[in-house]
Protein backbone atom coordinates (compact mmCIF):
# COMPACT_ATOMS: atom_id res chain seq x y z
CA UNK A 1 0.00 0.00 0.00
CA UNK A 2 1.22 3.49 -0.84
CA UNK A 3 1.87 6.03 1.87
CA UNK A 4 2.59 9.76 1.74
CA UNK A 5 4.19 11.80 4.51
CA UNK A 6 5.07 15.41 5.17
CA UNK A 7 8.49 16.00 6.68
CA UNK A 8 8.57 19.45 8.28
CA UNK A 9 11.64 21.11 9.76
CA UNK A 10 11.43 23.49 12.70
CA UNK A 11 12.73 27.04 12.28
CA UNK A 12 15.53 26.23 14.75
CA UNK A 13 16.79 23.34 12.64
CA UNK A 14 20.07 23.45 10.71
CA UNK A 15 18.76 20.78 8.36
CA UNK A 16 17.48 22.12 5.04
CA UNK A 17 14.77 20.47 2.92
CA UNK A 18 17.47 19.87 0.28
CA UNK A 19 19.56 17.97 2.90
CA UNK A 20 16.62 15.68 3.60
CA UNK A 21 16.03 15.16 -0.13
CA UNK A 22 19.72 14.29 -0.64
CA UNK A 23 19.61 11.86 2.28
CA UNK A 24 16.62 10.09 0.68
CA UNK A 25 18.38 9.91 -2.70
CA UNK A 26 21.43 8.41 -0.93
CA UNK A 27 19.27 5.67 0.56
CA UNK A 28 18.43 4.53 -2.97
CA UNK A 29 14.88 3.52 -2.20
CA UNK A 30 12.01 3.85 -4.65
CA UNK A 31 10.51 6.94 -3.09
CA UNK A 32 9.15 10.08 -4.73
CA UNK A 33 10.49 13.22 -3.09
CA UNK A 34 9.08 16.70 -3.49
CA UNK A 35 10.98 19.58 -1.91
CA UNK A 36 8.89 22.39 -0.46
CA UNK A 37 9.63 25.54 1.53
CA UNK A 38 8.74 23.84 4.84
CA UNK A 39 10.38 20.45 4.26
CA UNK A 40 9.68 17.60 1.86
CA UNK A 41 6.79 15.38 0.83
CA UNK A 42 7.70 11.71 0.41
CA UNK A 43 5.60 9.09 -1.32
CA UNK A 44 6.18 5.37 -1.76
CA UNK A 45 5.43 1.91 -0.42
CA UNK A 46 4.43 1.93 3.23
CA UNK A 47 7.32 -0.27 4.43
CA UNK A 48 9.95 1.78 2.60
CA UNK A 49 8.44 5.02 3.87
CA UNK A 50 8.46 3.77 7.49
CA UNK A 51 12.14 2.79 7.22
CA UNK A 52 13.01 6.12 5.60
CA UNK A 53 11.12 8.10 8.24
CA UNK A 54 13.35 6.60 10.97
CA UNK A 55 16.50 7.63 9.12
CA UNK A 56 15.22 11.14 8.41
CA UNK A 57 14.22 11.64 12.04
CA UNK A 58 17.73 10.61 13.15
CA UNK A 59 19.17 13.60 11.23
CA UNK A 60 17.78 16.03 13.84
CA UNK A 61 15.47 14.20 16.28
CA UNK A 62 14.00 17.20 18.05
CA UNK A 63 13.59 19.48 15.04
CA UNK A 64 12.08 17.22 12.39
CA UNK A 65 8.35 16.54 12.50
CA UNK A 66 6.51 14.03 10.36
CA UNK A 67 2.84 13.55 9.59
CA UNK A 68 0.66 11.58 7.19
CA UNK A 69 -0.84 13.10 4.06
CA UNK A 70 -3.98 11.85 2.35
CA UNK A 71 -3.11 12.84 -1.21
CA UNK A 72 0.04 11.89 -3.15
CA UNK A 73 2.38 14.79 -4.10
CA UNK A 74 1.31 16.71 -7.20
CA UNK A 75 -2.24 15.32 -7.12
CA UNK A 76 -4.31 17.65 -9.38
CA UNK A 77 -7.07 17.77 -6.76
CA UNK A 78 -4.72 19.46 -4.29
CA UNK A 79 -1.82 20.86 -6.33
CA UNK A 80 -2.00 24.65 -6.59
CA UNK A 81 -0.63 24.55 -10.13
CA UNK A 82 -3.80 22.80 -11.28
CA UNK A 83 -6.21 24.74 -9.11
CA UNK A 84 -5.26 28.26 -10.14
CA UNK A 85 -3.11 29.15 -7.12
CA UNK A 86 -4.08 30.03 -3.55
CA UNK A 87 -3.33 28.13 -0.38
CA UNK A 88 -3.98 24.41 -0.60
CA UNK A 89 -6.41 22.85 1.87
CA UNK A 90 -4.55 22.02 5.05
CA UNK A 91 -2.05 24.86 4.69
CA UNK A 92 -3.50 26.97 7.50
CA UNK A 93 -3.24 24.21 10.09
CA UNK A 94 0.37 23.55 9.10
CA UNK A 95 1.20 27.27 9.16
CA UNK A 96 -0.40 27.57 12.61
CA UNK A 97 1.52 24.60 14.02
CA UNK A 98 4.81 25.63 12.36
CA UNK A 99 4.83 28.73 14.57
CA UNK A 100 4.82 26.52 17.68
CA UNK A 101 7.41 24.03 16.39
CA UNK A 102 10.49 25.82 17.88
CA UNK A 103 8.84 25.64 21.33
CA UNK A 104 8.05 21.94 20.91
CA UNK A 105 11.62 21.33 19.73
CA UNK A 106 12.97 22.92 22.91
CA UNK A 107 10.55 20.78 24.93
CA UNK A 108 11.80 17.65 23.18
CA UNK A 109 15.41 18.72 23.74
CA UNK A 110 14.75 19.20 27.45
CA UNK A 111 13.12 15.74 27.63
CA UNK A 112 16.07 14.16 25.82
CA UNK A 113 18.53 15.78 28.25
CA UNK A 114 16.39 14.69 31.21
CA UNK A 115 15.91 18.25 32.42
CA UNK A 116 13.50 18.84 35.25
CA UNK A 117 10.08 20.02 34.14
CA UNK A 118 9.21 23.49 35.50
CA UNK A 119 6.37 23.44 38.04
CA UNK A 120 2.93 24.30 36.74
CA UNK A 121 1.84 27.85 37.45
CA UNK A 122 -1.47 27.97 39.29
CA UNK A 123 -4.36 29.02 37.09
CA UNK A 124 -6.28 32.18 37.84
CA UNK A 125 -9.48 31.36 39.69
CA UNK A 126 -12.52 33.49 40.34
CA UNK A 127 -13.33 33.88 44.06
CA UNK A 128 -16.37 31.97 45.25
CA UNK A 129 -19.39 33.72 46.80
CA UNK A 130 -18.23 32.88 50.33
CA UNK A 131 -14.73 34.21 49.61
CA UNK A 132 -16.23 37.40 48.19
CA UNK A 133 -18.36 37.85 51.33
CA UNK A 134 -15.30 37.42 53.53
CA UNK A 135 -13.32 39.88 51.45
CA UNK A 136 -16.11 42.48 51.68
CA UNK A 137 -16.43 41.98 55.44
CA UNK A 138 -12.66 42.36 55.93
CA UNK A 139 -12.57 45.46 53.78
CA UNK A 140 -15.58 47.31 55.22
CA UNK A 141 -15.71 46.12 58.83
Amino acid at each position, binding site marked *: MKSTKYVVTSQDSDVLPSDIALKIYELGREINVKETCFGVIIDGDEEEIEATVKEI*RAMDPSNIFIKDR*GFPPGDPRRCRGHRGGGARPGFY*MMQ*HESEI*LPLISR*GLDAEAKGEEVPPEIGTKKRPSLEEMEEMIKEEFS
Partner: protein
Amino acid sequence: MVKVMVYPPTSMILADLVERTGHEALVVSKEVRKKVNTPGLDSPPLNMTPEDPKKGLKYAAVDVPSGVRGRMSLLGPMIEEADAAIVIRGDDCTLGCTGCARTNELTRFLLKTKRIPLLELKYPEDEFQAKQFVHKIREFLEGLN
Protein backbone atom coordinates in the same frame (compact mmCIF):
# COMPACT_ATOMS: atom_id res chain seq x y z
CA MET B 1 1.25 -0.49 20.33
CA VAL B 2 -1.87 1.50 21.14
CA LYS B 3 -4.08 3.38 18.69
CA VAL B 4 -4.17 6.99 19.88
CA MET B 5 -6.64 9.42 18.36
CA VAL B 6 -5.37 12.99 18.11
CA TYR B 7 -7.62 16.03 18.00
CA PRO B 8 -7.39 18.29 15.95
CA PRO B 9 -7.29 15.25 13.66
CA THR B 10 -4.86 16.99 11.30
CA SER B 11 -2.37 17.94 14.03
CA MET B 12 1.21 17.37 12.97
CA ILE B 13 2.65 17.99 16.45
CA LEU B 14 0.41 15.46 18.19
CA ALA B 15 0.70 12.81 15.46
CA ASP B 16 4.49 13.15 15.51
CA LEU B 17 4.76 12.91 19.30
CA VAL B 18 2.52 9.83 19.31
CA GLU B 19 4.55 8.05 16.63
CA ARG B 20 7.84 8.91 18.36
CA THR B 21 6.77 6.76 21.31
CA GLY B 22 5.94 3.82 19.04
CA HIS B 23 2.15 4.11 19.12
CA GLU B 24 -0.12 4.53 16.12
CA ALA B 25 -1.67 7.97 15.63
CA LEU B 26 -5.20 7.97 14.25
CA VAL B 27 -5.33 11.00 11.97
CA VAL B 28 -7.90 12.10 9.42
CA SER B 29 -5.42 11.99 6.54
CA LYS B 30 -5.32 8.19 6.85
CA GLU B 31 -9.11 8.13 6.45
CA VAL B 32 -8.87 10.48 3.46
CA ARG B 33 -6.16 8.27 1.96
CA LYS B 34 -8.63 5.37 1.88
CA LYS B 35 -10.96 7.51 -0.24
CA VAL B 36 -8.37 9.12 -2.52
CA ASN B 37 -8.26 6.17 -4.87
CA THR B 38 -11.99 5.39 -4.71
CA PRO B 39 -13.43 5.59 -8.25
CA GLY B 40 -16.19 8.17 -8.64
CA LEU B 41 -14.92 10.52 -5.95
CA ASP B 42 -13.64 13.71 -7.55
CA SER B 43 -12.26 15.42 -4.50
CA PRO B 44 -12.50 13.63 -1.15
CA PRO B 45 -13.27 14.56 1.59
CA LEU B 46 -15.45 17.25 -0.04
CA ASN B 47 -17.20 14.59 -2.13
CA MET B 48 -18.98 11.74 -0.42
CA THR B 49 -20.31 8.30 -1.32
CA PRO B 50 -23.93 7.37 -0.44
CA GLU B 51 -22.48 5.31 2.44
CA ASP B 52 -20.81 8.28 4.16
CA PRO B 53 -23.95 10.13 5.37
CA LYS B 54 -25.17 6.85 6.85
CA LYS B 55 -21.96 6.59 8.87
CA GLY B 56 -22.40 10.21 10.02
CA LEU B 57 -26.02 9.58 11.03
CA LYS B 58 -24.83 7.02 13.53
CA TYR B 59 -23.31 9.83 15.63
CA ALA B 60 -25.45 12.89 14.87
CA ALA B 61 -29.19 13.24 14.23
CA VAL B 62 -30.60 14.17 10.81
CA ASP B 63 -31.40 17.74 11.94
CA VAL B 64 -27.77 18.39 12.93
CA PRO B 65 -25.93 20.54 10.33
CA SER B 66 -24.67 18.47 7.40
CA GLY B 67 -21.10 19.65 8.03
CA VAL B 68 -21.11 17.94 11.42
CA ARG B 69 -22.49 14.71 9.95
CA GLY B 70 -19.97 14.80 7.11
CA ARG B 71 -17.10 15.30 9.53
CA MET B 72 -18.43 12.56 11.80
CA SER B 73 -18.45 10.12 8.88
CA LEU B 74 -14.65 10.45 8.94
CA LEU B 75 -14.10 10.97 12.67
CA GLY B 76 -16.66 8.45 13.95
CA PRO B 77 -14.82 5.31 12.79
CA MET B 78 -11.60 6.79 14.23
CA ILE B 79 -13.26 7.28 17.63
CA GLU B 80 -14.50 3.69 17.57
CA GLU B 81 -11.01 2.44 16.72
CA ALA B 82 -9.23 4.56 19.36
CA ASP B 83 -7.74 3.04 22.52
CA ALA B 84 -6.67 6.44 23.88
CA ALA B 85 -6.94 10.07 22.85
CA ILE B 86 -5.11 13.39 23.10
CA VAL B 87 -7.28 16.47 22.61
CA ILE B 88 -6.20 20.09 22.22
CA ARG B 89 -8.78 22.47 23.61
CA GLY B 90 -9.56 26.08 22.80
CA ASP B 91 -7.32 26.37 19.77
CA ASP B 92 -8.10 28.88 17.03
CA CYS B 93 -7.51 26.32 14.31
CA THR B 94 -10.37 24.13 15.50
CA LEU B 95 -12.84 26.90 14.68
CA GLY B 96 -13.83 28.91 11.63
CA CYS B 97 -12.99 27.75 8.13
CA THR B 98 -10.56 25.11 9.38
CA GLY B 99 -12.78 23.49 11.99
CA CYS B 100 -16.22 23.16 13.51
CA ALA B 101 -17.12 23.93 17.14
CA ARG B 102 -20.08 21.50 17.22
CA THR B 103 -17.93 18.65 15.85
CA ASN B 104 -15.31 19.45 18.50
CA GLU B 105 -17.94 19.17 21.25
CA LEU B 106 -19.43 15.98 19.84
CA THR B 107 -16.01 14.35 19.43
CA ARG B 108 -15.00 15.20 23.00
CA PHE B 109 -18.33 13.91 24.26
CA LEU B 110 -17.97 10.60 22.37
CA LEU B 111 -14.37 10.16 23.56
CA LYS B 112 -15.38 10.83 27.17
CA THR B 113 -18.34 8.45 27.07
CA LYS B 114 -16.11 5.76 25.56
CA ARG B 115 -14.14 5.78 28.85
CA ILE B 116 -10.70 5.51 27.28
CA PRO B 117 -7.56 7.27 28.60
CA LEU B 118 -7.95 10.90 27.54
CA LEU B 119 -5.47 13.76 27.82
CA GLU B 120 -6.72 17.31 27.33
CA LEU B 121 -4.22 20.10 26.80
CA LYS B 122 -3.72 23.54 25.30
CA TYR B 123 -1.03 24.44 22.78
CA PRO B 124 1.94 26.03 24.57
CA GLU B 125 2.52 29.76 24.37
CA ASP B 126 6.01 29.90 25.91
CA GLU B 127 8.99 27.66 26.61
CA PHE B 128 7.87 26.61 30.10
CA GLN B 129 4.48 25.57 28.83
CA ALA B 130 6.13 23.72 25.93
CA LYS B 131 8.29 21.68 28.32
CA GLN B 132 5.21 20.76 30.35
CA PHE B 133 3.27 20.01 27.15
CA VAL B 134 5.87 17.56 25.85
CA HIS B 135 6.41 16.03 29.30
CA LYS B 136 2.69 15.43 29.89
CA ILE B 137 2.23 13.83 26.49
CA ARG B 138 5.27 11.60 26.96
CA GLU B 139 4.12 10.49 30.43
CA PHE B 140 0.61 9.81 29.11
CA LEU B 141 1.85 7.78 26.14
CA GLU B 142 4.38 5.80 28.19
CA GLY B 143 1.63 5.05 30.69
CA LEU B 144 -0.40 3.38 27.95
CA ASN B 145 2.16 0.59 27.66
